[in-house]
């Protein structure tokens, strides 16, 4: 089945110069099946209109497409459609939570927002393996409220070092924000253990699910997180769309950050009142075509089955890791057992940029740089790495083409 579905992705047939394409950069963004592309065309050719506010037929069709996207997503990750708020990307979703708490700390949102208020006696906990999107907003919140920012360190083997968990996450902790899966190491973190500790101290849990939702079965209700964020574009969906998922009661008391049309009930010149979630966080015209396309993507994923996708990618990960281990001068960052098909490494004597360039000349697309995780790279003593990351459309041949090219890198640059 996985060999067949490759045909659904037209870009995989394009060529890079004279080479076939092996796309191993899905950790950055995924490619799209034709059905997702077709949804755009169909939407703009047949039912494009502004949603919600219209009585006319096109507007009703557009609203249907928009709202059924919420249903598709809640079927995927748990909860009810009202828990799915659209954002432009996961980064916005994480910011909405951090900035909402910032506003609560500055008196916005009335009494019910008080539980989100932070001050100098409070702490915020993240991890050393966070993507900047789940680090910088919390730094900003700490700066704005005087709260202390703490973090769980990472072990040499690329896992969270939980030995001091109970002293890092303690009674002062109001927010515990961490990634489900590292976008660099591929490590799957033990969410349940982390959530359990957060519950003990009454901290809110914010889960960065960017690298988990596309690659494995994830249910936010089962995981019992308070807020979660991910992006459509990494999960076969379009650019320009992210998801903020939250517990309804919390969403409805978190002060909104972006304000304007379609998220208010009554507006006078002086004062406005806000709707409940999800509209509360959806100011202005929303990415409607994108939602329609993402609904198609989510249904496609569900049809393939995320458990099967997970198994398929785990197999590719094994091929990658075994292969890389055979090539001299390659140091893989992290060595977690519990992982997805993401492998980042350092090539001794050759800078990641040059590695990536060489691989590209062989038609192999990988990512180079710090992958928006500078602190994690610093932890491993490098400023940049090369990362190969898989998805459901990749096959063993992609991995082998990558490995063959990688083996030639040090010789090409005259390093032995």
């Amino acid at each position, binding site marked *: 089945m996985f060999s067949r579905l490759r045909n659904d992705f037209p870009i995989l047939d394009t060529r890079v110069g004279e080479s076939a394409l092996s796309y191993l950069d899905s950790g950055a963004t995924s490619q799209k099946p034709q059905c997702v592309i077709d949804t755009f065309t169909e939407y703009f050719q047949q039912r494009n209109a502004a949603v*919600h*506010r*219209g*009585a006319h037929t096109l*507007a*009703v069709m557009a*609203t*249907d497409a928009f709202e059924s996207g919420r249903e598709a997503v809640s079927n995927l990750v748990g909860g009810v459609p009202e828990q799915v708020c659209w954002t432009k990307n996961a980064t916005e979703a994480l910011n909405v939570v951090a900035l909402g708490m910032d506003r609560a700390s500055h008196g916005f949102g009335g009494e019910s927002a008080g539980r989100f208020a932070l001050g100098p006696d409070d702490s915020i906990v993240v991890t050393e393996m966070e993507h900047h999107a789940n680090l910088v907003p919390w730094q900003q919140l700490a700066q704005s409220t005087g709260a202390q920012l703490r973090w769980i360190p990472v072990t040499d083997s690329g896992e969270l070092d939980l030995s001091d968990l109970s002293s890092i996450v303690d009674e002062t902790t109001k927010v515990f924000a961490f990634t489900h899966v590292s976008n660099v190491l591929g490590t799957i973190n033990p969410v349940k253990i982390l959530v359990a500790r957060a519950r003990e101290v009454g901290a809110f849990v914010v889960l960065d699910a960017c690298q988990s939702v596309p690659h494995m079965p994830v249910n936010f209700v089962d995981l019992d997180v308070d807020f979660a964020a991910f992006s459509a574009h990494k999960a076969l969906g379009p650019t320009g769309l992210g998801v903020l998922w939250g517990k309804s009661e919390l969403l409805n008391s978190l002060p909104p950050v972006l304000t304007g049309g379609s998220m*208010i*009930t*009554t507006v006078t010149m002086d004062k406005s009142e806000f*709707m409940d979630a999800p*509209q509360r966080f959806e100011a202005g015209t929303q990415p409607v075509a994108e939602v329609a396309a993402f609904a198609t993507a989510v249904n496609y994923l569900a049809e393939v089955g995320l458990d099967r996708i997970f198994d398929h990618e785990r197999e590719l990960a094994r091929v990658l890791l075994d292969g890389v281990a055979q090539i001299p001068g390659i140091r893989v960052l992290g060595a977690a057992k519990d992982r997805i098909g993401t492998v980042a490494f350092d090539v001794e004597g050759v800078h990641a940029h040059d590695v990536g360039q060489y691989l590209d000349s062989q038609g192999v697309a990988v990512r180079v740089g710090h992958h928006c995780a500078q602190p994690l790279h610093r932890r491993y003593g490098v400023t940049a790495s090369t990362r190969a990351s898989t998805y459901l459309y990749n096959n063993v041949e992609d991995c082998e083409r990558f490995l063959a090219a990688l083996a030639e890198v040090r010789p090409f640059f005259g390093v032995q």
Partner: protein
Amino acid sequence: MSTQMQQLYQQVILDHSRSRIGNQALLRDDATGAHGFSHQVNPTCGDEIELETELLDDGTIAVRWTGDGCSISMASASVLSELATEASVADMLDIEAKFHELMHSRGTLEADEEILGDAAAFTGVSKFPARIKCALLSWVAFKDALNQAQTSLEE
């Protein structure tokens, strides 16, 4: 004129939207006995309704309301008020549940005219997703206000 439009704007609805039973000044603090009050706004269009319920000694409910909205929302409030004058509290809750279900049926349910009375005329509305909220606005207010009236009785 399309049949859908005729189904949406039944004569009963147009009549109610003009006659507006129950559309009268609220008593507010002057009301005696068990009463409740609710203010509902449809944020997509700004339509609003203020609705008051009063539990009468004969077991029926007096409904008074003022509002501003489309023919569907005004007719719905009128029909509701009319039904309340003849129904028990239990009956009205039953009607409310059935009406709610009907509105979300997207035209797949047939209305039970025996129970719903004039409210059965709103069957066509359920095929117009954008108008369902209009039809339900007064009912949401009613349920909220009735709840308060019952609570005040218990105290």
